[in-house]
């Protein structure tokens, strides 16, 4: 069982969360402006890293927030967990919350 420390709710088991896929796979900001190849890259192709992996999880049975999780996919160890935000300053804040929870 993976233990994810939600910045909002604290350490919770994985069954409270749903998986949202590769968090490093950014949707083109203006899909109508990119060519087919770039769109297919986004839609289908993955780096599929073996090691630390950035991914999205939603705490559906908790605060319902979307979280940006960095997890080692070989050991299943969660390295970091932030509330998903477009604003990098918010990321720093939520990192403090993780520390506070510990």
């Amino acid at each position: 069982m993976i233990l994810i420390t939600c910045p909002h709710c604290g350490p919770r088991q994985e069954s409270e969360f749903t998986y949202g896929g590769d968090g490093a796979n950014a949707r083109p900001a203006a899909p109508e402006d990119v060519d087919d190849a770039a769109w297919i890259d986004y839609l289908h192709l993955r780096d599929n890293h073996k090691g630390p992996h950035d991914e999205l999880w939603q705490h559906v049975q908790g605060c319902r927030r979307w979280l940006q999780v960095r997890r080692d996919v070989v050991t299943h160890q969660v390295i970091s967990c932030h509330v998903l935000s477009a604003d990098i300053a918010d990321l720093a804040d939520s990192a403090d919350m993780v520390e506070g929870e510990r």
Partner: protein
Amino acid sequence: MSKYSLTSLIRHGLTGHRGWKPAWRHPEPKAEYDAVIVGGGGHGLATAYYLAKNHGTTNIAVLEKGWLGGGNTGRNTTIVRSNYLLDGNAKFYEHGMKLWEGLSQDLNYNVMFSQRGVLNLAHSKGQLETFRRRGNAMRLNGIDAEILNRDDVAKFVPAMDTSPNTRFPIEGGLLQPRGGSARHDAVAWGYARSADQRGVDIIQNCEVTGIRRDQNGVLGVETSRGYIATKKIGLAVAGHSSQLAAMADVRLPIESHVLQAMVSEPVKPVLDTVVTFGAAHLYVSQSDKGELVMGGDIDGYNSFAQRGSLAVIEHVTTCLVALFPQFSRLRILRTWGGIMDMTTDGSPIIGTTPVPGLFLNGGWCYGGFKATPASGWVFAHTLATGQPHALNAELSLDRFHTGRVLDEKGAGPYPWLH
């Protein structure tokens, strides 16, 4: 190499079974081969066998980083079926089914293929209607399919609770009578022995660490046992396809996920078919040793660990007990996990890649074992001719770029949902 037969069994029996020879050689890698297949599981070994048998190409090597069949070939739940809806999948898997039906004789190796039927359970009229659609599509493709009502199901699987009082009452089912199960290790060993007899070098404990190439195509592979030159490389390493393809700078529409399986303690014969419970996700059959072999969904997150979480084991066993209340007294003997190549449309990839001389066989999601013979057959053709066989033309890597994806479930480009 001697042929296995009743007379050879009696002859060796008379001499105390001390005369059996190893089933394949352990050669040192040569400096160069006509083709190198990476991955000594069922698919890689079957590819080598059919390259030698159908195409007369014998100067080939199968490179395996561990031992033969030590990956997903030895970790699956051994189910064989061809009950697919879409033409691109149905014809391919049905070709495999026909190969399965003669495989033990062809390989002179008992793969214990048992056509005990594969039954998909339906729990509502709507689900049964979609099964009827799939069954009709299968029949149009020449594949056997039968729709069962609840009474038929009760007769076919007497051990199962088909009463109206269960949590998910059974409405009926889709049965493929020719489906069944086989002995997974024997498939790898049988193909290995027959490929070896035809001169294929099977090299174990040989990990590929790099792919050397120039602008014209591949030149060879770097391995833990030295450099091996070749103009053709076939990757059959499902679970790690992304890592091997990345050695040639190819990105794939694949995520690696862990799928768990488990067996109960062995009991006397009680279940003589394969039952799948798709509504909640369980598939179960009974092995010849008596263990109930079962599995369910992937854990649902990227993973390269060959183990998963207890939540999935609980889910699978809960489903089992819902269908077969008497199994609640059984204990789980062991559980394990294997790493799946999950593609973004849920169908496999067999064919060419953007790099000349580099060929890919992967993206098997949950379904690789049953495809082993067909996969080897068409991948051998692809390697030998440089072009896909008619049966794997639709399983190409470029279908993701052309939009001709094969999404059986209609789940969309979310690998963990297939």
